[in-house]
């Protein structure tokens, strides 16, 4: 468990954050630019000397009123937005920079492992200037991992990359997620990244903690801004039950029913996460017999609330334990006479994200 209670004053900005981060999985710090998410990450790494307060990582104090462990003594790996590789060193020398500086007994990961994990074999002799943004970022991740950190901190590692490079690096992050037990704190303002990677999330607003919980929970909470965003999304964790090779459809079971999602190949892992955009959910009163929708699942309406757009209505549905958001028009609501507690059938389009 990582427990923090920080305050930091800057002209025009005040950060006051208290909270906990689980010591496993990926926790995403989410919020708009300027909400303090990067500052929180820097405070944890010890890069903000004016940050006051307390930080306890797995029972060990890193900072309190009389203690400030300097950045170079904190067992963290930090991946900067732009990679920050040393331009005078080759990839291999970059990778070994931190590795050489930790005691032999603390080296749990070795250059060979990381080179293989991140697919860096062919770059070892190159310099940062000779690589693409995505490749540089992979090296930066590898370099941070090679300090065998207790905590991996990533500051919007994909923000400076174009779509192609993002797609180049996301599979490696998935792989990291599955093969390493190091807890990761991941700063982002991209909902897709949270939906794909995060196990836990902290939502920040103007230097304060707005909410914390699982992405599935926070993204569908109507008292929080995400549910009302244009790209409002529900996240469902599901179990792979079958893969139809001729139609390229993956059959999944989840708390609340079954669904099918398109997939090129059967994923290696048994559990996958799917994303359902609120606008891709339709509500019917009865099962449809003659439609194109593959996924039809019985659900119960738990709440109806207003949406920023005056034509829209946000419907919160319960499918077993799963919460699902649907965005429909107010007119449809009235035509179907929808009300909380009603049993309905939802049709939706889902995308597997990891």
């Amino acid at each position, binding site marked *: 468990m990582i427990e923090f209670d920080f305050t930091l004053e800057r002209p025009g900005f005040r950060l006051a954050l208290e909270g906990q981060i689980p010591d496993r999985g990926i926790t995403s710090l989410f919020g708009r630019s300027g909400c303090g998410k990067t500052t929180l990450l820097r405070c944890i*790494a010890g*890069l903000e000397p004016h940050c006051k307060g307390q930080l306890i990582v797995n029972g060990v104090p890193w900072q309190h009123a009389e203690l400030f462990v*300097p*950045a*170079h*003594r*904190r067992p*963290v*790996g*930090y991946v*900067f937005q*732009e990679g*920050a*590789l*040393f*331009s*005078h060193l080759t990839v291999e020398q970059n990778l070994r*920079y*931190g590795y050489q*500086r*930790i005691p032999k007994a603390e080296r749990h990961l070795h250059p060979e492992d990381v080179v293989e994990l991140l697919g860096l074999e062919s770059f070892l002799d190159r310099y940062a200037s000779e690589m693409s943004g995505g490749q540089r970022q992979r090296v930066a991740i590898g*370099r*941070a991992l090679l*300090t065998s950190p207790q905590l991996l901190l990533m500051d919007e590692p994909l923000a400076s990359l174009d779509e192609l490079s993002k797609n180049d690096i996301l599979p490696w992050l998935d792989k990291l997620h599955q093969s390493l037990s190091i807890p990761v704190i991941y700063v982002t303002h991209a909902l897709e990244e949270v939906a794909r990677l995060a196990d836990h999330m902290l939502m920040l607003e103007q230097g304060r903690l707005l909410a914390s919980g699982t992405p599935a929970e926070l993204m569908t909470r109507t008292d929080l801004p995400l549910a009302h965003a244009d790209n409002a999304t529900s996240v469902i964790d599901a179990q792979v039950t079958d893969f139809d090779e001729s139609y390229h459809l993956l059959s999944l079971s989840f708390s609340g029913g079954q669904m099918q999602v398109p997939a090129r190949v059967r994923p290696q892992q048994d559990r996958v996460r799917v994303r359902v955009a609120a606008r891709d959910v339709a509500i019917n009163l009865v099962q449809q017999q003659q439609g194109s929708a593959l996924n039809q699942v019985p659900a119960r309406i738990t709440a109806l609330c207003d949406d920023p757009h005056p034509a829209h209505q946000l419907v919160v549905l319960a499918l077993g334990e799963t919460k699902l958001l649907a965005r429909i028009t107010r007119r449809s609501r009235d035509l179907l006479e929808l009300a909380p507690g009603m049993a309905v059938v939802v049709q939706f389009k889902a995308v597997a994200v990891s």
Partner: protein
Amino acid sequence: MSALGISEADWAALWLTLRLAGVTTLILLVLGTPLAWWLATSQRRIKVAVESVVALPLVLPPTVLGFYVLMLLGAQGPVQALGGPALAFTFTGLVIGSVLYSLPFVVQPLQNTFSGIGRTTLEAASTLRASALDRFITVTLPLSRRGFLTAATLGFAHTLGEFGVVLMIGGNIPGETQVISIAIYDHVEATDYASAHRVSGFLLVLSFTMLFALYAVNGRFRVSVA
């Protein structure tokens, strides 16, 4: 012994000048590096004052600077009053004057290089367990190679061509404090243009060769004072 038609006295002046420039550059690199680092990283208000003092020799007439150094080191100066050695009209005195005179030519390129190294690069090094000194040696210094080359070249070349300061402090004693630029001036005064030509020509070729070698060592090397 008068190789290349240059008199023994002129060779002595030339050798003294090279020694002066070399010693001065060395001292400036040692003192200038921490000073430039402090100027590049400090947020303190006093920094502006220090920056101005460092830049003073750029605008001050060398004779003014030389005059003050002479007052400082001379018979009635505070250094001797406090029991210090008599440094006016000595090689050591020349070195002190040259260090002050060439200070901005070494400190400013270094300061520019140091500020050019992104904060993030050094922060990355600290998250990779490098202490402040370790970061300086393994990241800052190698990334500042060109800055050091510029600083050393400018410091050396500027000291080589010094005239006013040296004249004030050194007093033009042949073999002890007479530098080559003053020797050339003396030849011209005495209308011995032939000697002035030989020494000047030699200096021209020497300077060109030095710069050429430096540029060749680092193909992308650019001298810049901003």
